[in-house]
């Protein structure tokens, strides 16, 4: 047996010690070659093969990318007045994941709520989230920011947490003129994105490019001790210059508001002023606008109505009311243009040569087309026989039905398209509507009503663009509100070029129309757009509404005109939707507003007034500055301006004057110059000035030692209806009393 064992062991040649030795060698191999080998190859794989990927991922988490908001561009009016501007504010962000105790949450929530004037419970709920970014409040101002910084220090000191409450840069949009041109400018949302108007339409230009700060940070979000920072500057947004002129816009809004009140207008009104040659919109008013700084605040009345609704319906009603309030009526609403459209029909007929000065039209008071019921004229007895100009001035519907028939259905449609009614004008504002033409093949009855602007619904912007074409020699322009875009350094990056779409009518026809429409304003009655000293062309319109909301007789009162008639510069459309006051006629509701606006806008545009002798007697002049001058000098200066002078007192120098500097007084009015305090107590009694003609009013006022300023005198054929200072009142000599005039005769429309 033993031999076998020896033999066996000889073969293997392994003794017990060798066994240990061999196995140890095996162990060393296992540990060092297999074990360390595997480990080193694993490391080599991770560091060399996967290294780039892993490093990218590591860097990704180590670098914090902070976005710097770009400052939104400014919106200016055409003269560089700021209409919308962004200012630095801050947002308060909470990182509740850093809280370590309930006590901290309660306390910080309490502090934040009191500083930011928020509900403590809401803030406390935010502290419960497991997040590093919870917005507590946006757009806080610098004084609140100071308090938050104090709170940050307090938290740091008390709990040793540094990034719990953070302040991030933000911008707030300010609109210095509040509700001015609200429907054009629009407003921005909470993320600084444009929501309406130019803010929306030109959002990509205004927004700019946000910048980034990339820093190396540790896992807690504080900067690492080594420097790694890369800044990509934010590129501020471009600024925009509008064609809107703040002065003109303000004038328009002032009188539109007044018109809205005076006529108890139910459904807002629109006023658009346009440069007839370029299509630049100088003013665009949707009266009853909203405060751009607070665009979600409804008018009180509307809010009350909504509050009265059941709760579940309030939200929908509020949304509806807001979108209604924000709606730019000038481009989004359609209406029947009514008689204003007659200037278009007339232009077609002249351009086609189907009428001339000698063409006559007969009006019996109504007219029947095809088998339809008779169409009545507003003068039920009829206008009798009229020539072309008279037909326009009479605004005679039967005459225009005949003119329409002369033009014909095909040509009418062709011109309708030519004047741009069948397409959007392409104005650079959001929400433009299309017209509503007849939904069937146009019939002779359709043609009849369309001739005087019924049955075809168009937008106000289409109407004024067409009237500009009538005025400017026949060129249909594309209206626009943005004149120029400049970048943040002030370099111009885009200029709006005038775009003329086509010539619709010839220059001769345009000139003829200007002549006729000017004649219309001077002859058709006091309230047809006549302004003393200026040559205005225009047409009134009163149209029935498509649908009746407020009663069986809902009308739109409008006036569309332009000036000066011999070289038109500015066209203006005024329309009120559903006036419910004393009158709903365009001539009564819209013309006075048009006249008031134009009377201020034309001098502003430096259109020289040229008065006829007849006009001179009721045209106001501005009183000069006489205080400080010697009595002689003052007298001379006042006389040169065409005033009579009364000197009160014994002094050598003028110490005060009535009327004051720049007050409007009639030509030839009386200026009272005071040279000392002795005559201060002297008073005169205000006379009764109602019920007289212009010259009579002037005479009475002059005799009483006061001045009368003549208002609303469309022509000499008027009677005074009111005065702003009541008769019998004691006033200082020379005081200006504004006397309103009105015509007694019923007006054509």
């Amino acid at each position: 047996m033993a031999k076998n064992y020896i033999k066996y062991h000889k073969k293997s040649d392994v003794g017990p010690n060798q066994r240990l030795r061999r196995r140890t060698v095996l162990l060393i191999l296992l540990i060092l070659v297999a074990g360390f080998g595997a480990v080193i190859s694993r490391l080599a794989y991770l560091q060399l093969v996967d290294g780039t990927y892993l490093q990218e991922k590591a860097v990704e988490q180590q670098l914090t990318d902070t976005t710097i908001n770009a400052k939104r561009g400014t919106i200016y009016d055409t003269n560089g007045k700021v209409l919308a501007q962004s200012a630095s504010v801050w947002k308060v962000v909470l990182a509740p994941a850093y809280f370590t105790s309930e006590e901290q949450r309660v306390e910080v929530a309490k502090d934040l709520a009191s500083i930011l004037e928020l509900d403590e419970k809401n803030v406390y709920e935010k502290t419960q989230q497991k997040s590093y970014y919870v917005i507590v409040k946006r757009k806080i101002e610098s004084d609140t920011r100071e308090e938050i910084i104090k709170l940050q220090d307090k938290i740091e000191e008390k709990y040793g947490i540094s990034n719990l409450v953070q302040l991030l840069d933000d911008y707030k949009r300010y609109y210095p003129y509040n509700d001015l041109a609200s429907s054009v400018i629009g407003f921005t949302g909470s993320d600084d994105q444009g929501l309406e108007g130019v803010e929306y339409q030109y959002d990509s230009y205004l927004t700019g490019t946000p910048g980034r700060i990339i820093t190396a940070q540790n896992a807690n979000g504080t900067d690492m001790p080594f420097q790694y920072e890369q800044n990509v500057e934010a590129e501020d947004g471009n600024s925009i210059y509008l064609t809107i002129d703040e002065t003109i816009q303000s004038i328009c809004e002032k009188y539109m508001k007044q018109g809205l009140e005076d006529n108890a207008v139910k459904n807002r009104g629109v006023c658009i002023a346009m440069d007839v040659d370029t299509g630049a919109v100088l003013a665009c008013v949707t009266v009853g606008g909203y405060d751009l700084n607070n665009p979600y605040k409804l008018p009180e009345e509307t809010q009350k109505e909504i509050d009265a609704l059941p709760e579940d319906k309030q939200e929908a009603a509020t949304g509806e009311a807001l979108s209604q309030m924000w709606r730019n009526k000038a481009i989004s609403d359609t209406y029947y243009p009514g008689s204003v459209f007659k200037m278009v029909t007339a232009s077609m007929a002249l351009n086609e040569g189907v009428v001339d000065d000698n063409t006559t039209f007969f009006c019996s008071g109504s007219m029947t087309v095809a088998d339809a019921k008779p169409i009545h004229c507003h003068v039920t007895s009829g206008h009798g026989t009229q020539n072309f100009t008279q037909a326009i001035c009479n605004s005679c519907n039967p005459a225009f039905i005949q003119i329409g028939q002369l033009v014909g259905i095909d040509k009418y449609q062709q011109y309708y398209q030519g004047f741009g009614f069948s397409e959007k004008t392409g104005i650079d504002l959001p929400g433009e509507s299309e017209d509503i033409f007849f939904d069937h093949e146009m019939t002779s009855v359709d043609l009849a009503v369309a001739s005087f602007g019924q049955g075809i619904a168009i937008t106000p912007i289409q109407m004024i663009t067409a009237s500009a074409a009538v005025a400017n020699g026949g060129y249909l322009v594309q209206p626009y509100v943005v004149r120029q875009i400049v970048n943040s350094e002030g370099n111009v990056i885009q200029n709006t070029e005038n775009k003329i779409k086509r010539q619709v009518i010839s220059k001769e026809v345009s000139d003829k129309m200007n002549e006729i429409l000017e004649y219309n304003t001077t002859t058709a009655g006091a309230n047809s757009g006549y302004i003393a000293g200026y040559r205005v062309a225009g047409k009134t319109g009163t149209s029935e509404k498509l649908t009746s909301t407020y009663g069986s007789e809902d009308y739109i009162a409008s006036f569309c005109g332009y000036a000066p008639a011999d070289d038109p510069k500015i066209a203006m459309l005024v329309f009120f939707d559903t006036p419910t006051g004393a009158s709903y006629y365009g001539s009564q509701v819209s013309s006075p507003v048009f006249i008031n606006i134009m009377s201020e806008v034309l001098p502003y545009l430096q259109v020289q007034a040229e008065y006829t002798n007849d006009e001179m007697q009721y045209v106001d002049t501005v009183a000069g500055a006489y205080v400080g001058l010697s009595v002689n000098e003052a007298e001379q200066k006042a006389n040169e301006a065409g005033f009579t002078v009364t000197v009160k007192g014994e002094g050598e120098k003028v110490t005060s004057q009535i009327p004051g500097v720049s007050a409007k007084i009639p030509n030839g009015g009386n200026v009272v110059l005071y040279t000392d305090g002795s005559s201060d107590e002297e008073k005169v009694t205000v006379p009764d000035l109602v019920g007289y003609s212009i010259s009579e009013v002037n005479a009475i006022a002059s005799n009483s030692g006061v001045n009368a300023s003549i208002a609303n005198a469309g022509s000499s054929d008027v009677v005074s209806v009111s005065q702003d200072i009541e008769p019998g009142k004691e006033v200082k000599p020379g005081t200006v009393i504004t006397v309103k005039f009105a015509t007694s005769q019923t007006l054509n429309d």
Partner: protein
Amino acid sequence: MTSYQEMFLKADINRIYDEKYRENQRVKSQERFVRSGNKKIKAKRKKSWFVKGMGIDLPFCLIILVLLIIGMIMMFSASYPVAYYTMDDSYYYLKRQLIFAVIGVAVMLGLSFFNYNKLHKIAPFVLGVSYAALVLVLILPANNGVHRWIGIGTFGIQASEITKFAIVLFFAHWGSKYYNKMELAKYSILPGVIIFGTTAILLILEPHYSCTAIVFVLTVLMLFISGMKMKYIAIGGAAIVAAILLLWITGGLTYAMTRMDGWGQALIYTNEQMWQDTWQTRNSLYAIGSGGLWGLGLGQSRQKYLYLPEPQNDFVFAIVCEELGLIGAVIILLIFALLVWRGITLSLRAKDKFGKLLGIGLTAQIGLQVILNILVITDWMPNTGISLPFFSYGGSSLIMLLAQMGLVLSISRTANIEKQ
């Protein structure tokens, strides 16, 4: 013939062969000595470059000190941001580790004078102490959901540190005592199964899976060098491989990986829970990958800025890889390899079997922990808490480690003497 008789016969033959082998070696060595030209054989001492007399093995000692110093520097580099942010003192971990290192080195040098043979007899008692410690931690309140620490004053020690040492010590004792009977299952498999089994149950109760794995490998390792039949190892190995394959095929492996805190899935997390669970491992991989070949430079790690949690502990080597790159990592691993090599080869020359087995076991344990640690930080093993010797922060484990090295040094004193 009974197996008993057979065994004695076998032992006899072994002895004969051993003597023949020793004789052979002696002759060879003397021939070498004569060839070297020195005719005077003054002492019965093997020639050594480093050691005179009964001295400790200087190269081994130097390697330990080098690793200790490099480890200290890297632990400091890895720990100072976290120390700064959480302790308000960048030197917090360095200061403590330095104190432990000084104590540890003193213990190491002290123990190098200790006659390790005294442990031979008390090995079963030490094993008993380790069991007692394992039971004690289960009674003590849990810390972070696990029962691992026994507090002694302000410092604590992990019961498993004692266990690892006790296992090596006991099997060195057992293996040397029954060296010639180790081929029998009764002397190898049986004690292995009993001791590992009972220890494993206690460790799993803690729970401490990584230590369970280390104890398992140490048990097998000790039995293997003691002479357990290769057959059993082959069968055991095959069974483990088969089990893994089976799990892999049935998809159970992925499930197990997901359950084990997303092991192996640090970069392919699919939900937030996994993302959270694998946070440490993922950031370890980011750190390692960021190092590339040359590293970001000493002190330049970015991942240690609170991205990699507890960079001073188990994951310190990830920061080493980030700062020193593959080059630095490989150099450090080579030093570790040198330590293992030197430790094992010197132990082989120990004058008795107990010393040989103990020295090999203690040294191999270090190599094993290095490998397992790096497998963990590279996401090839579940993240279960295996520290890197000399590098990871931890007072008790460092002292324990250096004490064990002291024992190896003590063994080395006998290794360089020419044995009679």
